[in-house]
């Protein structure tokens, strides 16, 4: 992800090292966030599909998965549960997106600082 190459004599201070470390941490966090956002989006889609199915079905009692078993739950309660789960996941998704934006901004700042000091000796792009 990042290496210093060249054969130049650019000095690396402890502050530079900490910046590089921080960039590494942010990059890792960025990838974790991407994965978590994808999972949360999939969950929301599943909830939407489920509630669409609910509207179409004419049964009064729906088998709703709780833990490892399917409990017989009245349709209204299932609707409520799905709504609650959708809301929780949406809020979680919003928080993840905000964190991702913050991480991207911090990474951009660090890139500026590190490229300014090391120019070609450092590579901070995705491989």
């Amino acid at each position, binding site marked *: 992800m990042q290496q*210093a190459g060249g054969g130049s004599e650019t000095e*690396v201070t402890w502050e530079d090292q900490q910046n590089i470390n921080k960039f590494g941490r942010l990059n890792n966090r960025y990838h974790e966030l991407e994965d978590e956002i994808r999972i949360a989006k999939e969950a929301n889609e599943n909830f939407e599909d489920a509630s669409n199915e609910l509207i179409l079905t004419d049964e009064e009692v729906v088998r709703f998965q709780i833990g490892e078993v399917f409990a*017989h739950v009245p349709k209204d309660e299932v609707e409520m549960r799905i709504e609650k789960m959708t809301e929780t996941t949406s809020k979680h998704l919003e928080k993840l997106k905000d964190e991702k934006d913050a991480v991207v901004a911090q990474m951009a700042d660090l890139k500026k600082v590190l490229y300014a000091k090391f120019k070609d000796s450092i590579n901070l792009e995705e491989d």
Partner: protein
Amino acid sequence: MATSSSPPQSDTEVVAERRGIPAASFVKDVQAYLNQLGLDVNSTLAFQQERLQQYKMVEMKLLAQQRDLQAKIPDIEKCLDVVATLQAKKDTDEALLTDFEVSEGIYSRARIENADSVCLWLGANVMLEYSCEEATSLLQNNLENAKASLEVLVADLQFLRDQVTITQVTIARVYNWDVHQRRVRQASSSQDS
């Protein structure tokens, strides 16, 4: 590399080691570092590479632990959900009808009435019966412990990754320094001749 736990380090700028993971020493000046080690460039590079491999191995172990914990937490949350549902049904005095898996692809129906107690699987082929309240508090406890362990693990991984980065940068700098020295030597020897 020993992985016995040691007392947690405070967040000072330079941490000597963390829970058995030695910190990579930051190199201010390559020449001074080589003098301090008393090794030539190739041996130093080999030493750093070996350190890097050790770090990678510990990282793999920690990542596996992290995956286990991340799978365990939703499981505990599902159990809490079930116990909460049973308690709710008990309060309304309804029976709970559920379809459960008997074997792969085969399901059966169960009628659960007045669930006063639940049995919790504790592992090691042991299952204990608890009242709903006790079960909820035990599961809640397990959930909090798992989340706390996960936090510590994530911090360990971050520390480890930092040490990996420092080691990688040190390897690059020692290598570059060597290349630079060779160039200087070549330039001065071509001047002399």
